[in-house]
């Protein structure tokens, strides 16, 4: 009786052990075959960020911030130009609670070089993270308006302070309808803000 139950136990252990071994081998092979280079989460988060490369999050660009968020080293609420929408998207992707934003994003800006005062030192060209400034040494520099992300990184290096940050002009083609100006729609806005506050 004792022997019988003992051998039953041994059978169970042996068969389970064999199964575990097989599964382990299959998984080890699968990991080799389906190996993924890098962390796909980083690219997924990077795709949500506005790519201004402005560094307002405290990291030297969008990719580094995405890396930090993916590694849970940074909170999801540091992207200022991305605003609430980006924060909610990242929180959703990471499966964490949304957080209130650090600071409000300002209106979209655009760098503008006052060419009369530019001395052609190329310092702003080197500072621009998206290659949106053209020029050569001792030549006027100018900002390609369509490429400027408004990150302000070129303002600081300029030795003669000839770069202005202008509010991006609103184009009639890009104008979008606001919410209807009715009491109920405003109520909806207030409620949403309340929810956001509680969360």
């Amino acid at each position, binding site marked *: 009786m004792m022997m019988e139950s003992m051998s039953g136990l041994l059978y169970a252990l042996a068969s389970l052990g064999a199964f575990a071994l097989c599964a382990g081998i299959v998984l080890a092979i699968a990991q080799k075959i389906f190996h993924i280079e890098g962390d796909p989460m980083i690219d997924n988060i*990077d795709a949500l*960020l*506005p*790519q*201004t*490369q402005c560094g307002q999050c405290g990291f*030297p*660009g*969008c990719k*580094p911030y995405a890396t930090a968020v993916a590694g849970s080293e940074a909170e999801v609420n540091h992207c200022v130009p991305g605003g609430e*929408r980006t924060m909610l998207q990242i929180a959703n992707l990471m499966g964490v609670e949304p957080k209130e934003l650090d600071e409000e994003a300002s209106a979209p800006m655009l760098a503008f070089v006052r060419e009369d005062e530019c001395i052609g030192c*190329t*310092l702003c060209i*080197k*500072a621009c*993270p*998206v*290659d*949106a400034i053209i020029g050569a*040494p001792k030549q006027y520099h100018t900002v390609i308006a369509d*490429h400027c*992300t408004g990150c302000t990184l070129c303002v600081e290096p300029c030795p003669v302070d000839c770069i202005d940050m202008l509010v991006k002009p*609103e184009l*009639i*083609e*890009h*104008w*979008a*309808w*606001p*919410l*209807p*100006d*009715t*009491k*109920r*729609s405003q109520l*909806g806005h207030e409620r*949403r803000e309340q929810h956001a506050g509680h969360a």
Partner: protein
Amino acid sequence: MPAMLRTLAQKMGLMAHSFRGGIHPDMHKLSAMNPIENVAISPVLILPMKQHIGSVCSPLVKVGDHVLRGQKIAKSEGYLSVPVHASTSGRVVKIEEHAIAHPSGMGMPSIFIEADGDDRADESLEPIIDWQNTDPTLLRERARMCGLAGLGGAVFPTFIKLVQDKRFPIETVILNGIECEPYLTNDHRLMVEQASEILDGMAIIMHMVGTSSGIIAIEDNKADAAQAMQEALNSKDGMDDVRIEVLPTRYPQGSEKQLIYTLTGREVPAGKLPMHIGVLCQNVGTSKALRDAVMLGQPLTERIVTISGDALPQPANLRVRLGTPIRSLFARQGLEDFNHIQIVHGGPMMGERLSHPDIPVIKSTSGILALSKQAIDAAHTVENPCIRCGHCSEACPVSLVPNLLADFCRSDQLEKAEDYQLFDCIECGACSYVCPSNIPLVHYFRYGKGQIALARREQVFAEASRQRSEGRDARIERELAEKAARRSRVRKTHAPKPVADASANKPATPDVTASDNAVENTAKPEEKS
């Protein structure tokens, strides 16, 4: 009749097709019996650089230039665009931003022409009398050069539609004389008074797309127009395969896709064009303008405008030069005080509310209305909760669920709104019209569409920025590596110094934080040995 039974009857050919939903608003066709009047040329004409759907034109003239009627004064930029022409002879007095009929209230660069009173025409375009034997591509180029755009109100460049595509041969040309918007009567009067010219235009269209079959669609509240068109049709040769369909009045029957379904029983798939199912649809006014462009060599410089509304003393149909300020038209019809009056550009269902009458008539100005403000404000400021009555879904001609869609738009659940086919909405306003809670449904849809478009633009911009940023990082890294390699070469050829180790290690770590170091290296042009 239950919907299923009706569908069955239509499928079996027992009953005519008819688009789903729709509404029967009071038509208020106050000016239906008023013949078209010519308006004296305004002393100053204002011509905005964009009067069509597509890209903005750029001016070809400078301040002080003398221009002739029909002279091209702005050239189109890009494919989806048509040029702008001077609508009378005179002098260009200024080129600056001026208000246009746009819900944002923003302006558009415009050319101001001071009329010299001679109204001399530019006769450089030869009339094409023998158009039957002219290559359709030449006629198409004529339509583009003459600035033709859909005069029904959507102002889509006409020449784009007038094409023979082997993959999508056009079987039927539909001439749209429905004019289902309340108040508007400009197409109605044009059909009554210039039926023969419209049919000439239609013959040209049919020649251009290579078909002989056509339908002229008219609603049954315009019996006189249908009769005039029928009489003109009887006296035309070579148009035996064209028939006139008189349809029961219902809004939005004049919408292209709805009209095509009613007439042919075929549905234009979402995201496709009528040409993909072998149909071409043109407004009667556009047809007449095409005839003028081909047979007279006249660019589009004038159009018929209905001026109407419950607050206007004398409703009328006017033949107006493009660029005429609408304030002067209101004054002509006895309205000068704009207090407690809402001006609408276009029809009351789909037109834009304007905050002031200082805009010019453009190619899309099918009508201008002066409505008493109380009536409009009552319907627009008190929005009650949705009671789920379902009237909006019944009225929707494209089978959407407007109350649900509006909720998604209001709460910024834009992906869901897209899943529920927000972009199939034609913004006809039937749902808002029937809503017992006065919910401005279409306004929510426009908000939602705008936000989605914004997000898409931002995504495209972000992707471009990311590529530029990555390209820059790669370049900096490469330049650092080249520099390091050269230094090590230099160390090998010359006597090695112990100090060099420290400096060699430093640039080998491509860290973005060391940007000072990095940028220094990018500046110096490197020589390759």
